[in-house]
């Protein structure tokens, strides 16, 4: 039998392999037409054929997403800290934020285009608009659920509210924060890609639209997979940072991470 450790290391690859085989088998077995759902092998061939343009578009999307995500993290932290530490701000802003985030961001892209032209800036802004909310919610929840006992440690030293936030609030909220990053990065990708499909000459979103209007579904799926891979890469980065920064919270030997 495999040891637990080897199993854990291999697990993601095994699952991906299994999914890949399933995909190919279903598509080939049920003769799903290519224009609907191409086979994995077709996607693979298409990826190889269009390697250079895919890389170029992917780089654009990646950088755009990172920029939007970066803004989202900063804004999310600040808003989350405000919402989580003041009942007035909480009550005042939260419903509004929820309402705003129920709206598909794609509706704003045309407006952004008018203000900023098509291309990178609307994509960055869309990525930002779509992804800051989870950060706000989680940071706010992390702060609001801070044990008063821990806060008292700082308060008994006469610490200012900002000190308390910095020394207990935010560290305590770190596990929440990292959870939100995982959601936010996926949304940031969604945001920039959606914006690219509506208004851009560049990026995976554009590539997918172009491919789908030239009926190259294999290329569309290649684009999807590239986005997925970029998402996973970013996730692994956070997972690394998370292990380093919130190891204290993940000390449960039976838990994951």
């Amino acid at each position, binding site marked *: 039998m495999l040891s637990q450790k080897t199993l854990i290391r291999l697990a993601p690859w095994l699952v991906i392999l299994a999914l890949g085989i399933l995909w190919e088998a279903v598509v080939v077995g049920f003769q799903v*037409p290519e*224009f*609907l759902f191409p086979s994995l092998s077709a996607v693979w061939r298409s990826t190889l054929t*269009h390697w*250079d*343009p895919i890389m170029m578009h992917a780089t654009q999307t990646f950088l755009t997403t990172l920029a939007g995500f970066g803004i989202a993290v900063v804004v999310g932290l600040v808003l989350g800290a405000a919402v989580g530490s003041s009942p007035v701000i909480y009550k005042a802003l939260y419903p509004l934020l929820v309402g705003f985030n129920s709206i598909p961001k794609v509706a704003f892209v*045309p407006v952004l*285009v*008018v*203000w900023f*032209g*098509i*291309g990178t800036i609307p994509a960055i802004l869309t990525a930002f608009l779509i992804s800051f909310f989870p950060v706000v919610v989680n940071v706010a929840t992390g702060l609001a659920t801070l044990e008063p006992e821990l806060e008292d440690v700082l308060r008994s030293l006469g610490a200012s509210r900002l000190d308390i936030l910095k020394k207990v609030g935010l560290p305590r909220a770190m596990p929440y924060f990292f959870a939100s990053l995982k959601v936010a990065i996926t949304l940031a990708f969604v945001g920039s890609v959606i914006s690219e*499909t*509506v*208004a*851009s*000459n560049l990026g995976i979103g*554009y*590539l997918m*639209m*172009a*491919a*789908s*209007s*030239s*009926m*190259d579904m294999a*290329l569309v799926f290649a684009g999807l997979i590239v986005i997925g891979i970029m998402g996973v890469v970013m996730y692994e980065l956070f997972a690394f940072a998370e292990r380093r920064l919130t190891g204290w919270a993940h000390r449960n030997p039976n838990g994951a991470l």
Partner: protein
Amino acid sequence: DPVKIKFTLDWRFEGPAAPFLLAKAKNYFAAEGLDVEIDAGNGSAGAVTRVATGAYEMGFADFNSLIEQEAKTPGTKIQGVYMVYNSTPAAIVLLKKSGVSKPADLVGKTLAAPVFDGGRKAWPAFAKANGLALDAVKWQTVEPAIRETLLARGDVDGITGFYFTSVLNLEARGVKTEDIVALKYPDHGVEFYGNAIIASPKFLAEKPQAVAGFVRAFNKALKETLANPEAAVAYVKERDPLINVALETRRLKMAMDMVVVTPETARLGLGAVDEARLKRSVADVVAAFGLPATPDAGALFTSAYLPPAADRAVK
């Protein structure tokens, strides 16, 4: 200093965009003292909005959307300066097995199209011209990307769309060319014009020379494209390496044959309009779209920037 022009296409970089890209790549614009930046669009109505808001100086947009814009927000004053598509490329596309071969057969059928599709919006004009009731067909609203899929699978009886997009899409979904029936709007009494080069009023007022230069350069490129579509598509490929050259060449040729080279352009030359038809078509659009006002046809299109007729002649 060259005059900067931000220009928006109606759609992505596809075959029919070839003349624009060719003009840029072969420096025809530069020769006119212009620095043109060409962006992909996301719909021919969207292009009107982009120009209307001032984000773009010029664009390639559906002339009927321009009529609608002017009717709904009078005073926009965007003008068409070059009618590239002499008629609307809209068509109702069906499969032969639906048994439809003429408009009268459409009664009771279900057609799929986005609400903003030109063909769907122009349906009242099509119905009127062919003596059909407005509610003769049922509509199913879908995204552009899946209507051909639904048709190919038989989920709907037909679709509306740009002829040269829908037919090619259907073929890519495994439908044979001979199994496709297309009721092209221009062939069935709908006199709508198609896509035109439009310019914002501000730009027209401030840089009329630039507009004229743009149109001149484009006209030259369009003629070159007509003469050698295969070569023109290479410039599309250059701009967007992802395109399928064979497919886009076909698309370009279909577009040329259907809406660029028509009896009217043979008579008036490329880019021009027939004043009487323009008037009629504006009225038809107003009726079909249910618009609140009828804009002045003369203000919507100006022939002032067109190159001499000789330069625009086609056979």
